[in-house]
């Protein structure tokens, strides 16, 4: 036992925990022996990982801050994230620093810029950071969700059925991989770009989010598909699958109930990795005129504008940079915690 890092629960086997036993190791007198479910075990393991819990709390708070929080902040400061403040530049045309009060020509009042101005346009850095987080999270999370949904489905089908299904998925993967993604993006921008950018589902999403999600999904699904396919290929030969087949379980049930739980770890790990990658990719594609449309803020475009001021107002790099780093870190740590919770053997 001392050579492993497995917990007592894990070594005692499913269903029985320390609390179910008397000090001598016998079942507690009069106590009902209750089997713990799979998800309950996952949760028990997960909640012991304080770093993962902290990451989850951070992400929940982040969502609160960028959704209702941004709206509340806008009401408090009295202007929107795209409001331009000509007076928020100093004599050298540099943006003013944190906690500056500037005149709002539209209302005639003096407004507070909590983190100062965002650049030469003199917009509120704080509000743009909040609203930018909203857009960046939308792009990253929705893209990740769709990529994993398509990728896992394709990979599981290819790995489980093999044969023609595998061939079709493999060819689709190769075609997608061989396709010049950048060319597609540019073509998309010049043809359907403006129409796609305008799809916001009644303002629920930022302008351009749909375009980016589409691009990321089209060119992102095959990575998880290949990972999942390989994993399913090996799981397919395991005894528990044979057993399930012998009991007459349907293919859908086997995939859903027997294979999928074993795929949670790679899914979680890969998801947390690409969430961060999509946040950064958003900036690059916006530069090509695809995706987030000016003046909509995103962490990506806040970051891409900041280097112009790196020598004079370095804080402009710090704020969005910090937001991306902390969010990325939180997703990764959460992913680690979830992986360990789902697959405790991976900690050996």
């Amino acid at each position, binding site marked *: 036992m001392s050579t492993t890092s497995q917990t007592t629960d894990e070594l005692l086997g499913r269903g029985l925990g320390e609390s179910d036993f008397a000090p001598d190791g016998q079942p507690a007198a009069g106590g009902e022996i209750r089997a713990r479910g799979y998800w309950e075990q996952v949760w028990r393991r997960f909640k012991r990982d304080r770093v993962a819990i902290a990451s989850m709390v951070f992400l929940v708070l982040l969502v609160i801050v960028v959704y209702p929080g941004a709206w509340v902040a806008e009401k408090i400061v009295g202007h929107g994230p*795209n*409001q*331009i403040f*000509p007076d928020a*530049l100093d*004599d*050298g*045309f*540099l943006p003013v620093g944190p906690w500056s009060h500037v005149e709002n*020509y539209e209302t005639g009042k003096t407004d507070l810029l909590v983190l100062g101005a965002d*650049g*030469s*346009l003199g917009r509120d850095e704080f509000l743009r950071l909040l609203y930018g987080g909203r857009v960046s999270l939308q792009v990253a999370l929705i893209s990740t969700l769709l990529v994993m949904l398509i990728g896992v489905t394709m990979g599981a089908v290819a790995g489980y059925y093999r044969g023609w299904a595998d061939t079709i998925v493999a060819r689709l993967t190769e075609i997608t991989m061989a396709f010049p993604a950048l060319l597609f993006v540019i073509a998309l921008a010049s043809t359907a770009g*403006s129409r796609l950018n305008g799809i916001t589902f009644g303002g629920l999403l930022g302008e351009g989010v749909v375009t980016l999600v589409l691009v990321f999904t089209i060119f992102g699904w095959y990575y998880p598909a290949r990972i999942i396919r390989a994993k399913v290929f090996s799981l397919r030969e395991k005894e528990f699958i044979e057993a399930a087949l012998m009991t007459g379980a349907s293919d859908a049930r086997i995939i859903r109930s027997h294979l999928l739980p074993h795929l949670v770890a790679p899914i979680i790990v890969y998801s947390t990795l690409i969430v961060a990658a999509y946040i950064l990719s958003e900036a690059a594609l916006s*530069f090509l*005129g695809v995706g987030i*449309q*000016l*003046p909509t803020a995103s962490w990506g475009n806040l970051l891409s*504008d900041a*280097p*112009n*001021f*790196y*020598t*004079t107002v370095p804080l402009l790099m710090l704020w969005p940079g910090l937001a991306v780093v902390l969010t990325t870190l939180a997703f990764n740590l959460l992913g680690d915690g979830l992986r360990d919770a789902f697959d405790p053997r991976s900690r050996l």
Partner: protein
Amino acid sequence: MKGRMLASVVMTAIGASLLAGALFASTAAGAGAAATAKKGGTITIVNRSDFDYVDPGLAYFSHSWNMMSAVQLTLLYYPHTEGAARNRLSGMAANMPKVSADGKTYVFTVKNGFRFSDGKPVTAANFKRAFDRGKNASMQSPASSFMDDIASYTAKGQVFTVKLKSVAPDFMARTTMMFFAAVPVDLPFTADGIKAPVVSAGPYYLKEWNVKNSALAVRNPFWKNNQEPFKSLGFAANVDQIRWIAGPDPATQRLMCERGEADVCGFPPAQAKELADKFGINKSQFFVKKQIGNWYLAMNTSRGIFQNNVKLRQAVANAIDRRFMVAQHGYLGGFRTDQFIPLGMPGFKNFDIYSLKGPNYAKAKSLAQGNTRDGKAVMYTYNTSAGPPIAQSVQFNLKQIGVDVEIKLFDRVVQHEKTATRGEPFDLTLEGWLADYPDPANFINVLLDGRRIQADNNVNASYFNDPKFNAQMDRAYKLSGTARTTAYAILDRDIMKDAAPVAPYISSGARILTSTKVGCFGYSGSQGTLLTQICTK
């Protein structure tokens, strides 16, 4: 010169500034010049965008013409120097021409001794070929719009004769344009232009051009700087090679100059103040120079919401925040203006047409009311430096008058190629223009005369074509001296006020960052960095 100040912007670093004008003008000439020019070495210039063409018959970007000022030989030229001497039109390949009594015939005698980089002598036929290419329909050269009044031209030995349909006071100035530089007599007519190596007759020739990447000019082996006819031109031609690098963004350009990886660079407008404080102005590495150029918002009068909609165009001219737009060009970037003829250009007269202090929304809204049509406009702009923030400023301003602007960002070269094509679906575009030569017609006629519009390579970005103003341009064009400049000043005012096809906002200046390696540095308001004078330490 190269019209499109294009990429310049930013791009080249060169952006610019007329700055408190006189203040720096006095120190301009020779500022930063080393006492002794060292011969040899390589100077590296970094631009955001590549040349549009290296073919003199097609190139029209400011930095393309800047390159050509070192490699091409024109009939006449403006001396490569700073200060007043720069404005004296002088003979280059030819002496000043003999002009007939009626002012319609010009006889140029090409000097003996000039040779192309392949050793062939320069004759009148080489200039005739340049004119042929300018007029050739398949070339679609911007030069054609400068040749409408040419009745005929002939070449015989060293004598090149041009006959005009009518008197043209700016004709000699036009011969300084790179379109009309000497080219080999067998240079083909091609819409795509020739590629490097380019045989040319200037002090250098373009040996390499790696499209969208780099270019290299080396000495013309037949250029003898210490003997006539070369000597009197005053080209020091100090360096052995001039290299251009295309692509790095302004922030990277600055780093390249500071690390010594390049010698003439741009920088983000937001860093201008810091650089001025760090290096001083016109003292060592940071130069602020006069420039005869402007930036403006062109409204497409051939389609969309601005077509036959003067009131909305006037509303836009009232709504934009010129003070703020100028701020986007950074410290010492230029002066606010509402006029098309830039400060420093003959014909500039200060009129009070639109607010320079900020938007006049009240007037703009009253003009826009009932005239916004579908209320949607597509704006093209370049994707670096001041391009995106200026577009966002315009977007914000126009939203206040009921016009939703969709911004489309492009590389500057792509933006120009698109807006230069008739029928391109844009409503607004951010444009700049640097004087080809010091004459107001170079702004008014060249950029606003609708009869010059062709299928491609247009510089009339607003596609403005008003018969009334075309006729007034014709009348002003035939005048000379004070009458000419006064006529153009009034024409400028009337077009901006009554038709508003463009909304100028800045009379720009130039700011340049150099490496510590640069010894002599000079700048011309219309030509840019004086490549024939630059030297290393």
